[in-house]
């Protein structure tokens, strides 16, 4: 199983890094959105919050393909290609994330709630 190299982990951990998630529907139509909650669960697994995922969620459940584009503050660029595993809203991890996401999002907008956590396995890592 491919793993995330240290350089990618370091870039993901930088506070100013911008992450975008691309998914695809059955007709080959891509969908790219900004996601600010990318987290590394282990070197083979990433996760992000479902706060207001629309088309992204629909695509993940239908095709299961996603790519996370990572743009670091120093211009380092990576693509993490992944296979969607599941949306989690029952485990201890969900309970821990619920409060963290609430705290983070409350700064931007009140009333948002965590619906679940998208979990995906890394299949390929590219440096651009």
């Amino acid at each position: 199983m491919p793993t995330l190299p240290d350089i990618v982990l370091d870039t993901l951990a930088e506070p100013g890094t911008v992450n975008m998630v691309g998914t695809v529907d059955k007709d080959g139509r891509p969908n790219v959105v900004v996601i600010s909650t990318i987290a590394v669960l282990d070197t083979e697994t990433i996760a992000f919050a479902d706060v207001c995922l629309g088309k992204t969620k629909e695509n993940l459940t239908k095709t299961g393909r996603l790519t996370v584009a990572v743009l670091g503050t120093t211009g380092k660029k990576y693509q993490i290609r992944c296979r969607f595993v599941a949306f989690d809203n029952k485990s201890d991890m969900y309970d821990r994330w619920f409060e963290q996401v609430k705290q983070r999002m409350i700064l931007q907008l009140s009333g948002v709630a965590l619906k679940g956590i998208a979990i995906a396995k890394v299949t390929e890592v590219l440096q651009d």
Partner: protein
Amino acid sequence: MKIPEDVAEMLEKETSIKMIGTVDADLSINIEHLKVIKIIDYDTIHIPHFTDNDRTFDNLQKNKKVSIAIFEPAIIAFKLNGLFAGVKKTEESLNHFSGFFDAEKLAGAISIKITEIYALTMAIAGDKVA
């Protein structure tokens, strides 16, 4: 469909973060960071086409659909869906990008017709804006 003024401004702003997603024949998604976008008319943009290793262009040969996300830190963001509309190799189209890349790396400009625009900003995420 007309690209609204605020979206057009953001697209051409050097400080906004822009990424384009395309898809290959195996439904693998490729996302490239765009340093620069040039607005051509009310629904058409140009992005640079590179001589080497241009995965965006390679994918567009087989699948014309594109998705572009633009982000202005901290929270303003839009998503633009569009279709590949060919490559321009005129001097004018190359000049749009010459200040950003070495001339020998530029093969032309990829033309994209924007068909839909959605807000990604949290309070109005998913709302169609054009």
